[in-house]
């Protein structure tokens, strides 16, 4: 009996440790008090302040712009990559696939610095362009792996069957492969979107002062102390990311044959 209680207590405290900060942040974002330690009653004042903060809104807009374009491009490229891995046999196929994982596990700092070195070697001005390229690089392996793992659950013979039944390669792609891959493609897009939206480290290295994005804006705001409007902002971002990841997981759960 005591053993079970102990187990439960350990489990509870681990989860509490993980989640209490987030819960506190969310709760405080609705706190009317200016100094976050005292509860002064429910209020949406910080959310209103958020909307009226033009600097913050501009950064948010920039973030969404980068996230939408980088995830769209990464999904296109990664999706094609996944398709070639699925459809064609070529030399060093496994090496190509393995290289994606290397990219996925390589620390963000390393990626950020190496990209910065590349951009400055090419004399590219830091800003939207460089940030976009960096975020595509960041998302690409995730997209490829997500789409490929869905496709590899289907027999490659389905394409041959379509071809055999009179479909050209492009029709087979459109009528068979695309519908099969669709949930994974959408999930991959959502995943890239959150990756791009949340990224601080890589973005820190590769964007310039002219193009500020939300995570970096927050970062500079909290250097002068955490204000309640940051809490509100983080709550919005947290909810958005959670929703996107949730949707993408739902899409991927769809049964396969």
């Amino acid at each position, binding site marked *: 009996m005591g053993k079970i209680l102990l187990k439960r207590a350990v489990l509870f405290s681990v989860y509490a440790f993980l989640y209490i900060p987030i819960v506190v942040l969310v709760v405080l974002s609705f706190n009317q008090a200016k100094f976050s330690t005292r509860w002064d009653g429910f209020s949406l004042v910080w959310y209103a302040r958020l909307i009226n903060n033009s600097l913050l809104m501009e950064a948010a807009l920039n973030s969404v712009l980068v996230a939408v374009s980088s995830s769209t491009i990464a999904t296109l490229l990664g999706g094609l990559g996944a398709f070639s891995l699925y459809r064609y046999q070529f030399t060093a196929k496994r090496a190509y696939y393995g290289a994606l994982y290397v990219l996925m596990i390589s620390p963000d700092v390393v990626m950020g610095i190496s990209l910065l070195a590349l951009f400055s070697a090419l004399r590219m001005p830091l800003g939207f362009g460089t940030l976009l390229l960096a975020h595509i690089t960041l998302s690409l392996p995730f997209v490829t792996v997500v789409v490929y793992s869905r496709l590899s659950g289907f027999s490659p013979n389905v394409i041959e069957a379509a071809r055999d039944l009179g479909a050209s390669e492009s029709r087979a792609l459109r009528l068979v492969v695309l*519908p099969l891959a669709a949930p994974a493609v959408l999930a991959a897009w959502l995943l890239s979107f959150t990756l791009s939206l949340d990224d601080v480290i890589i973005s820190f290295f590769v964007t310039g002062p002219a193009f500020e994005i939300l995570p970096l804006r927050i970062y500079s705001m909290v250097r002068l102390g955490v204000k309640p409007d940051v809490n509100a902002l983080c709550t919005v971002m947290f909810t958005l990311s959670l929703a996107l990841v949730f949707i993408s997981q739902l899409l991927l759960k769809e049964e396969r044959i």
Partner: protein
Amino acid sequence: MEQRKTVVALQGVEKAYDGHQVVHGLDLEVQEGEFLTLLGPSGCGKTTILRMIAGFEHPGKGDIFLGGQRVNDVPPHKRDVHMVFQNYALFPHMTVAQNVAFGLKMKRLPKAVIETEVENALRLVKLESFAGRKPRQLSGGQQQRVALARALVNKPLVLLFDEPLNALDYRLRKEMQRELRHLQQTLKATFVFVTHDQEEALSMSDRVVVMREGRVEQTGTPRQVYEDPENLFVASFIGETNVLSGKVLEIPEPNKLKALVEGVVCVFSSKRRFSPGDSIKVLLRPEDLRVETLAAKPDTEGRFAGRIVEKNYKGATLDSVILLDSGVRLLASEFFDEEDEDFDYQLEERVSVGWVGTWEVVLPDAP
């Protein structure tokens, strides 16, 4: 018999992967309305041949003709052949009806025509009530039927089957074999079937092509390849067989030979020509052997003497293994005789083994 059209013809077809030759100079003709089976162990090139006919593989050398047209460079979607895949390869996101309609849609037929054709095809494979289901909601046997209907509905010149029954259990497999044969005969369709299962090949086909390592070993009716195998490989691949070695002693009359086999002088009949001194292999099917106990038949003239070392009750037959005095093992498979209710042997019992005269196959002992 009427002269039938040749639907598929392969002439001197060769195929190699990375320098490894999979198919050697193959000539093959499939007649209209024929059920032809390519039979051989895995890796003998039979699936590659099928894939070359379908257009998924390009022959390195030689020509492939479909309905008299050379199709070497015609892509798969422009060939009037359809394939039933080993794992069915149904489209998981489409319903049964949509799967079956796929080929007709590719031909851009009118909707009404597609609907009736799909309905007919589903009735043919007894799945009319499953039209709205997704493939994953069907059993393996049902999926198999959908794959069949999806290919049949297009009325191709020839239907190709790549070991499609492998995944089914024994009973379902037998049932599908009968059904396939029945369908093929009612539709007068041309089927090319690939399998490594000799029983399947014998029971369904009009003609069997026995293959080994990319070469044809023998082509013939199931009866020809079973009863008159051209070589040791065919004999031992198709059904069980006992192989005995011997030497020709003399040729007493045409089509007969006297030989010393396992220490016994026997007379065999064979249409092949032999001369005294030739080394030979004698093939005896287990079901052609006749075993007698020494107690019942003490005369062992021209028979092999030995003792029973194993017996397996098989229901319809009694299979026994006889260890000959020369050290060779023979497998005999005998039907139960209704007149002899006590028909059985004791282990270690002394017996002599004969065979049904003229049913033996004598081959020259060449590698």
